[in-house]
């Protein structure tokens, strides 16, 4: 019988392989639950449903007090309803790792090229959180683009804090999208679009059907009323030239048919 063969010890039923994955990292600066939990709920609660099923690693290497142990169980209980799935910790000392394991979190090793953790026995100078390279200071191009496949609806807000934002649907009136890098809307742009929100003056906004409430690049903005009617409903690209927003058609072609 075939089925019997498959189940014999000789036939492997699985394979274990290493793989380099890109994961979201939550850098904790304070371990104190009161403040932390509230801020997490405020921050992630603003974009409900956005982090659906996103695995998350908790980084302990930036804690102001490197000895303090965060309440991992409470942290998991807070993050799960927000859609995030904490999978492990990194950068912790032996005690912290012990508690993390008790909360069913894995312990990851700090990747190459990143700051190694000090052994638990020899805690050194308190790291200053201000000196930590904030992820937001990464050049926009270095971070991957955030891709949204569903329409962005009135009252919703989508933020790509580190790179480009690509929306494969429409952005409706009353919605707001923000990106540190470029914004691409492969649908109608009817809401507000703010590109280069961290000051990147090279950022651009692309949309297939242009009729936004407001557009902005690196703080320079225009409202719908100021827009030239000829661009409305067209495929356009907006860039910043001499501190002014420049709106140009794009993607037009002459049909040979």
């Amino acid at each position, binding site marked *: 019988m075939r089925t019997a063969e498959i189940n014999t010890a000789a036939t492997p039923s699985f394979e274990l392989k290493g793989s380099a994955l890109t994961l979201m990292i939550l850098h904790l600066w304070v371990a104190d639950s009161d403040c932390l939990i509230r801020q997490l709920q405020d921050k992630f609660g603003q974009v*409900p*449903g956005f982090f*659906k*099923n996103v695995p998350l690693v908790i980084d302990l290497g930036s804690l102001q007090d490197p000895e303090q142990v965060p309440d991992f169980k409470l942290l998991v209980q807070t993050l799960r*309803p927000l*859609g995030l799935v904490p999978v492990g910790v990194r950068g912790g000392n032996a005690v912290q790792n012990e508690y993390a394991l008790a909360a069913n979190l894995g312990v990851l090793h700090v990747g190459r090229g990143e700051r190694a953790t000090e052994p638990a026995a020899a805690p050194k100078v308190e790291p200053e959180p201000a000196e930590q390279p904030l992820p937001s200071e990464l050049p926009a191009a270095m971070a991957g683009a955030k891709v949204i496949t*569903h*329409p962005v*609806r*009135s*009252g*919703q807000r989508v933020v790509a804090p580190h790179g480009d934002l690509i929306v494969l*649907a*429409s952005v*409706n*009136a*009353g*919605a707001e999208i923000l990106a540190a890098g470029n914004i691409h809307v492969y649908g*109608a742009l*009817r809401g507000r679009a703010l590109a280069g929100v961290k000051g990147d003056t090279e950022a651009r906004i692309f949309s297939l059907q242009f009729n936004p409430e407001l557009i902005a690049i690196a703080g320079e903005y225009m409202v719908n009323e100021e827009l030239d009617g000829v661009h409305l409903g067209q495929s356009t690209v907006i860039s910043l030239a001499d501190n002014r927003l420049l709106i140009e058609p794009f993607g037009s072609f002459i049909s040979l048919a």
Partner: protein
Amino acid sequence: MAKVVVVTSGKGGVGKTTTSAAFSAGLALRGYKTVVLDFDVGLRNLDLIMGCERRVVYDLLNVIHGEGSLNQALIKDKRVDNLFVLPASQTRDKDALSLEGVERIINELKERFDYIICDSPAGIEKGAITAMYFADEALVVTNPEVSSVRDSDRIIGMLSSKTRRAEQNLSVKEHLVVTRYDASRVNRGDMLSAADVQEILAIPFLGVIPESKSVLVASNSGVPVTLDKDNDAGSAYMDVVDRFLGQERPFRFMDVPKKGLISRLFGS
């Protein structure tokens, strides 16, 4: 398996209660055991539209607070078998609705009915959230005008974030119903077309309900429009019910009716 369907819109006055009444009566006519719940606590209307306002003894809040049983509160429709109404309380406000209480009642109703229709209040506050929280599917009622479409857009966003199914990473199945549709005004450019509304909201489309004088007459006489024969809005709602149940129906009332020679000569 019983299904919970919320009828919602964001904006007020677009026809949620009319749709709830017509849709639930239509489901009952098609043989499904249906109950329609009024979530508009403090501004109850459904009982009027269903014509059972003089038979209300206990309401949703009484049942939630254990002051009356579900059996005492459910009002059986006199015209259609299988159709029941659970009215809202007029003397309380929406803060009195607790999610736990509503869940208990919905679970009890699920044992006895095929469809549980929740008539949502307008707005995006607690009342509307409570009405949609336990929904498996949603009828999004929209008028062909920009403010209604934008409010519906907002509500669709909330269906995918504020409901129990959303919290379980499941989706609420949405259906679009465009009410008070006037094809001749669409042609004149006074109204958004059904295609415009579909394009903006991007959810499956169940059909249009034509603007009709008979809707007001039916409301005032307490008859769900689907129970009124020879009524264009009623037959449009029946099409919506059938499409909801998975049947193919040609789309009607989307174009201006062509006038025959006689009516063209003599006016209609």
